[in-house]
């Protein structure tokens, strides 16, 4: 399994990278390569040119950005995994990153790479959609932004414009006192792509009721989804289990889940419901300051 031949170059800055992409529509950027290289050696991807963006310093950062945290596209997943700012401000992201692949792939894989790849079962797109992250990209000398919910449009398909390269992603930080998170994933083996994943982030008010809630489901459909109907129903409530169950079931009633070698559509539907309920319960419990069970 040897890749088809290609030209290789390193870009010193993002505009140089975009220039290469614009000059040759067979050109692709390479950052971590953890998904691109396997596709290339199996000759499923055959770029004529690889533009290595790993050295572009401006693309690798984790920093506060207003009431959010901005992470550069080529920031390694393992760096995000250990980052104190992320742990403090983006607990849901911190919780999910260890589930991405293996530590050896997180050592090279990047935040931007995973987002641009848009695998239905990937964790980062799910977190981005759950938290309403905003992705920034560069194309033709101009910077553009796109909300996560508009970015993922199909299995392995994004709305990233032709010739554009992701530069960073900004995750809003929830500012409240009682924030809790939940994350669940089911797969055959611990480190596999998820059959289904579910996320929840909850802010409880002083009265103990749900002030704000976001629920996401990934891997069940072509791209991650938010359970908006359930969020609406549960906002302002005490998040009691019956209500959560009803709201989640109803929000997932009409999805058309993926079916493949690993899991049937029926399985994904049931697991989505089950995991979303668990994620909300965990988020509520952790917002209340309770320990949650390992799953």
């Amino acid at each position, binding site marked *: *399994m*040897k*890749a*088809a*031949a290609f030209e290789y170059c390193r870009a010193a800055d993002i505009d140089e990278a975009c220039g290469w992409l614009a000059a040759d529509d067979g050109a692709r950027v390479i950052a971590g390569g953890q998904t691109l290289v396997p596709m290339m050696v*199996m*000759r499923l991807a055959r770029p004529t040119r690889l533009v290595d963006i790993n050295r572009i310093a401006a693309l690798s950062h984790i920093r506060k950005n207003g009431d959010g945290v901005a992470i550069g596209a080529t920031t390694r997943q393992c760096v995000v995994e250990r980052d104190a700012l992320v742990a403090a401000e983006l607990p849901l992201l911190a919780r999910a990153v260890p589930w991405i692949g293996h530590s050896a792939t997180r050592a090279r894989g990047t935040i931007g790479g995973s987002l641009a790849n848009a695998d239905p079962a990937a964790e980062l797109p799910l977190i981005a959609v759950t938290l309403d992250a905003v992705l920034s990209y560069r194309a033709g000398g101009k910077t553009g932004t796109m909300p996560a919910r508009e970015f993922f449009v199909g299995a392995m398909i994004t709305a990233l414009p032709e010739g554009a390269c992701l530069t960073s992603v900004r995750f809003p930080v929830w500012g409240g006192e009682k924030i809790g998170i939940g994350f669940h994933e*089911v*797969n*055959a*083996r*611990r*480190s*596999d*792509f998820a*059959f289904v994943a579910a996320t929840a982030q909850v802010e409880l008010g002083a009265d103990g009721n749900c002030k704000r809630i976001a629920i996401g489901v990934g891997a069940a459909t072509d791209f991650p989804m938010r359970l908006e109907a359930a969020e609406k129903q549960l906002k302002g409530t005490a998040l009691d289990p019956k209500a959560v169950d009803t709201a989640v079931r109803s929000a997932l009633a009409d999805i058309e889940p993926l079916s493949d*070698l*690993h*899991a*049937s559509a*029926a*399985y994904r539907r*049931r*697991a989505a419901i*089950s*995991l979303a309920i668990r994620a909300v319960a965990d988020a509520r419990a952790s917002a209340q300051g309770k320990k949650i069970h390992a799953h």
Partner: protein
Amino acid sequence: MTATGHHRYVSTDRRVREDRRFVAGKGQFVADIDLPNTKHVAVVTCPHAAARIKAIDKRAALKMPGVHYVVDGAELAAATLPLLTGLDTPNVQRRPLSLDVARYSGEWVAAVVADSRAQAEDAAEAIDIDYEPLPFVLDAEEAFKPGAMLVHEAHGSNVLLDKTFVWGEVDKDFAASPRKLALRVKWGRSSTVPIETFGVVTSWDPWREILDVYASIQMPRYADQIGLALKIPTSSVRVHYDVDVGGSYGVKRGIKHTVLCGYLARRLGFPVRLIEDRLENMRGGDAHGPERLFDVEVAFDNSGLVRSMKMRALENVGAYAGRSPFQLGKPIGAIVGPYKINSVKYQAIAVVTNKTTQDAVRGFGQGPTNLALERCMDEVANVLGLDPLEVRRRNMIRHEEFPYLIPSGTTYDSGNYETVIDKVLANTSYQDLKVERDRLRGEGRLAGIGMAACLEPSGGNATFEALLNPAITTSTFMDSCRINIDGLGAITATMHTTSSGQGHETLVGTVVGEVLQVDPDTVRVTRPDSLNSLPSGTPVGSRMAIMLGGAAFHAAQKLKDKLTAIAAHDLGIPLERAVYERGEVFDRNAPDKRRSCADLINIAHRYYHRMPEGFEPGLAAEHVYQVPTGGTLPTKDGRVQMYPCFSFEFHLLLLSIDPDLGRPEIVRYRLGHDCGTQINPKIVRGMTMGGIAHGIGAALYEEFAYNDEGQLIAQTFMDYLLPSSHEVPAVEIVDHETPSPHTVLGQKGSGESGYLGAPAAVANAINDAIRPLGISINTLPIKVSKLGDLIADARAKKGN
């Protein structure tokens, strides 16, 4: 040294000498071999499940950079003979490259030779092949039906084998039994998938007329098959046995790769190298294993005693067959497992389909058969409302009943099953497991206890060949060892096959050291090539501890006897008074009268005038060892002694399932293991743990799955799921040693331990867990999604 005597080196906690080179990355795997001027091969594979090959256009490929040659099936077929088959099926011909018709997606159709592997792959893409897709059949039951689409037209049917054996009065026993039950059990297509793929380097020396072969190989008669196919004498084939094999567990047969490369090396005049990439391996290498459907019926009484069994085994061998259908025959030698079943009817059916060819896998069919048998035992218990452990105990052969003759004609050598089970339960109380299971159930989980009691036939007496193909009358199954003590006393022993991690060099050193009473680490062990070797049956059938150990033991014993005789003669004493001790010999009546090791070596090598009359000078001895209890052929009614020795394993595990997600988790795992004398305990334990991991993979994760278009959809490690360290729980193993009366040190085999029983134990645990829902599952692998769907359907029916 008696089988039950105290050993100086055998059974002690010694390091495995091979480990030294591997931890430094200094093994010599086939891909590490760099012969000057070697060219690289890549293969072109058929994308269709079945197709006629109408034309192969090589022109564009031949013009590409670095390309030297393109060979197709027609050219290869003109120059070589078809590969050997085990059954008598001359119209089901197997060749390295398809001839006229390709019969599975992934079958090799052409091969490119280029300066680099990458260039060979580039050129392989440029070969234009005109295919006419043909109808195909994937399912064994479909293929078995009369009028089914034929995979090999010339054979006239899809059936390679359909043989029924009746041992004992099956009908009478069934009629006399108050209870019966029937079960259908499916072992899904899986295999042991080593991390190193198969690879071969061949080089032809036209001046000496020798074909050098370096390969990651584990196969009997490898040099023979190369010579036969290439139509050259086997004395022109030099297989290098000192290539380290990166795992095999049965599968690395590599004959089509070798014949292809051997032909190319002779044709082109430079060394040729084919290292399968993972796609070539999974789709068209030796990667696939048994895919077997069992229909089993047992007849039993109200106390759970199973009197008779009818078993029909339908095997989907894939598009071609070498030895693999014999995997239906090997289990005949332990067809009743550890139980006193009185009579058996066994029907073995092998059919071809348009799937990848199956090859030999660890256990050679015993694992799937144990699955069927052990599921039956649990269902018998279930139907009677009895405890499954108790039912097994009632049926088990007791230790005082050995040697025990089973209906199919094999005598089990020794065993103490009840003691092994007792030891496991002393380690972990059965009652405690039940309490824990109930606690998990109380927490809303599905939880089950699973067990399996099964045998590991060992010793490799492959008379199943003669059973399934009467044209074969082989009764010789041998191995050998040659030892030389040189003029300065250095001991070198040889072994005559490759190894894939079993620690055979350590085995030989330990046995030779034990007999000669010298530190095993001072015994050099080498692997001559096939032209310098004595016969070896290779590491199959869990045979090497018995066979190589036996050969080494006897060769060493010959040397010990010679040294003793030399000393007796030189001391002028009768032989009976001469005592050998650590290389020295002394007079029993006058211990000061002795000859040192150096003395004896000098006499043997230099002082012929002091040698006993008629003795050969020097200190060289060899032994070619026939398998114990071997040498017989089947009777007319299909009975024969197969393997000589029977190891025993008892698995007991507790498993918990998330009822909403269907995801199983093994909570506790205990194993009792008895393989007789353990020559090296570290090796035995490692083998068993590895076997359990393989078994968990087969039970829960691994499947070569196909879609309806005949495409293998599990063709990479992203879809064929191998257990990682997370998926293999901690296992506590308790050992027992019931020596074999047939072997030099009481040792039995352990090369398949764990794998033969783990799938059955896991399947039984899952069934115990889901039984309260009124459901069962008898198809492996038991995947999360399948289990989840099954549980959900059952709960829906119950109105949950």
